[in-house]
């Protein structure tokens, strides 16, 4: 048994980890794309559909009450997990992308030509394209916080050019393509000094770090449940009350209104104003169950164990001739993006798959990073707390074999 985590026991919670791929036991190292789902969460989903599936809010019958209570309990679980002041500051979304678009759309009427939006050089497309669309609508300018070859942000130009014109700053907490943990505390502080709002994309951070959103004093924070052992199709957007009250509603529909007539419609209070339509009820409840599952293990222990996996994998992989890792900062999570010299990442990924090892290859929805390094993409192995040191060994062996076959 590992001193920090009983990984062998934990693995039993994940039915998928028992399966074979191409005749080999699966080694799942694509956790940054989506995490696996423990039986405890699957059970919550089955229980929902088997026992109390119903449309929520305003229903007087018991099923509807039970579903509403469970859904609202999940909202409070999210609130507590991220130390959020009010539960109405937790907006349930369909995922990080939805949350970001909600904010980007909401700022349309607040921005003017000449205003500036800053975004980091290592963003996921979900945290670039909505702001480009926003700039197109408003005439604001998109500025970029640059990065260096180690895969870390270079804040100096940002600090120097921040000004009253800066209205918004967007940055991911952790880069999905590099694993870098960004210095968001400093970015938030600097942005607030000139009165700019900050949205932090926490999609990659949530599986590893329990962010304290009150301490961070961040204006918006977004996450996706499918990256933290929860189901697909659900996520959450945190927003400070003052911002959520200022922003116009994103979508129109059921749930988000107070009164509707053809002449005049008034919107509901928070959080409902931003939650039009029947939500992903089961997804929301299972999202809460996923956080419960992680907290039962302990986020600190998860992070410590993953760091061990990262360090071991990094040192073993670097022993391979011609292997280069992208993202060499000291402050990073268990994501390793790499390439073998002269070899296309797609080839490596395809051969690893034949060996039962699931990694992601390509631009990881972060083309600007690939352009920066002038590469077509990388092979990305991303580890979760249910991975083992011997799975790292299989990865390393696999990469060696691939290198041999491909050169």
């Amino acid at each position: 048994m590992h001193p920090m985590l009983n990984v062998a026991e934990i693995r039993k919670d994940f039915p998928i980890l028992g399966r074979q791929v191409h005749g080999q036991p699966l080694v799942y190292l694509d956790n940054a794309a989506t995490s696996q789902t423990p039986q405890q969460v699957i059970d919550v989903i089955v229980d929902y559909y088997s026992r109390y599936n119903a449309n929520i809010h305003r229903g007087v019958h018991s099923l509807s009450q039970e579903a509403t209570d469970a859904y609202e309990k999940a909202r409070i679980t999210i609130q507590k997990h991220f130390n959020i002041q009010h539960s109405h500051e937790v907006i349930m979304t369909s995922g990080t992308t939805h949350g970001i678009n909600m904010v980007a759309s909401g700022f349309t009427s607040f921005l003017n030509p000449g205003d500036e939006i800053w975004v980091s050089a290592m963003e996921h497309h979900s945290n670039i394209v909505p702001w480009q669309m926003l700039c197109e609508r408003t005439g604001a300018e998109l500025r970029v916080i640059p990065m260096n070859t180690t895969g870390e942000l270079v804040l100096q130009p940002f600090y120097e050019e921040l000004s009253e014109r800066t209205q918004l700053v967007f940055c991911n907490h952790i880069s999905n393509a590099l694993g870098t943990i960004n210095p968001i505390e400093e970015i938030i502080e600097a942005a607030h000094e000139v009165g700019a709002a900050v949205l932090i994309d926490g999609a990659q951070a949530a599986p590893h770090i329990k962010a304290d959103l009150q301490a961070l004093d961040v204006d918006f924070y977004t996450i996706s449940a499918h990256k933290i052992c929860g189901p697909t199709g659900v996520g959450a957007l945190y927003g400070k009350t003052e911002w959520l009250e200022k922003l116009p509603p994103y979508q129109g529909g059921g749930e988000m209104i107070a009164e509707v007539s053809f002449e005049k419609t008034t919107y509901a209070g928070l959080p409902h104003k931003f939650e039009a339509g029947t939500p992903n009820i089961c997804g929301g409840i299972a999202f809460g169950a996923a956080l419960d599952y992680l907290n039962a293990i302990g986020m600190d222990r998860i992070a410590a164990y993953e760091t061990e996996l990262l360090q071991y994998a990094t040192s073993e992989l670097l022993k391979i001739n011609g292997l280069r890792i992208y993202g060499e900062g000291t402050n990073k999570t268990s994501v390793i993006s790499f390439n073998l010299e002269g070899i296309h990442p797609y080839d490596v990924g395809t051969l690893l798959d034949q060996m039962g090892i699931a990694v992601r290859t390509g631009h990881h929805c972060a083309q600007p990073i690939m352009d920066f390094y002038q590469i077509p993409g990388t092979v990305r192995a991303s580890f979760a707390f249910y991975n083992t040191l011997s799975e790292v060994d299989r990865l390393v062996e696999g990469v060696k074999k691939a290198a041999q076959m491909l050169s």
Partner: protein
Amino acid sequence: MQIEAIQEEIVDEFSMFDDWMQRYEYMIELGKSLPKISDEFKTDDHLIKGCQSKVWVHADMEDGKVVFTADSDAIITKGIIGILIRAFSNQKPADILSAKTDFIDEIGLKEHLSPTRANGLVSMIKQLKLYALAYQAKIES
């Protein structure tokens, strides 16, 4: 009578019933005998939010005690607010503020206690306590 004693009385009354029908029939009775709010107070700012039916509550101060009146367009809701008013009306603000509300649970209305419940029982209790708080502040100032 003190709030606690009234609450006990209500619990006693409800404990006589064997089934939900008797309980609800009694609640409907109570609703019918509710101290009615006068029509001039049936305005939007006396409305309690979060109820599927409309509930208006008004409070007055008489001899250092808060007197509640209320109405609803649904009779069961009227019964529920009626029970609350019976427990809390004609009491000193400080007593209302410190009063417990467990008796709701004991009279078999537990399911109505969820904050998401469409009848807004939780909102009603909150509103009664808010009125008491306002009068308490007035007394102290």
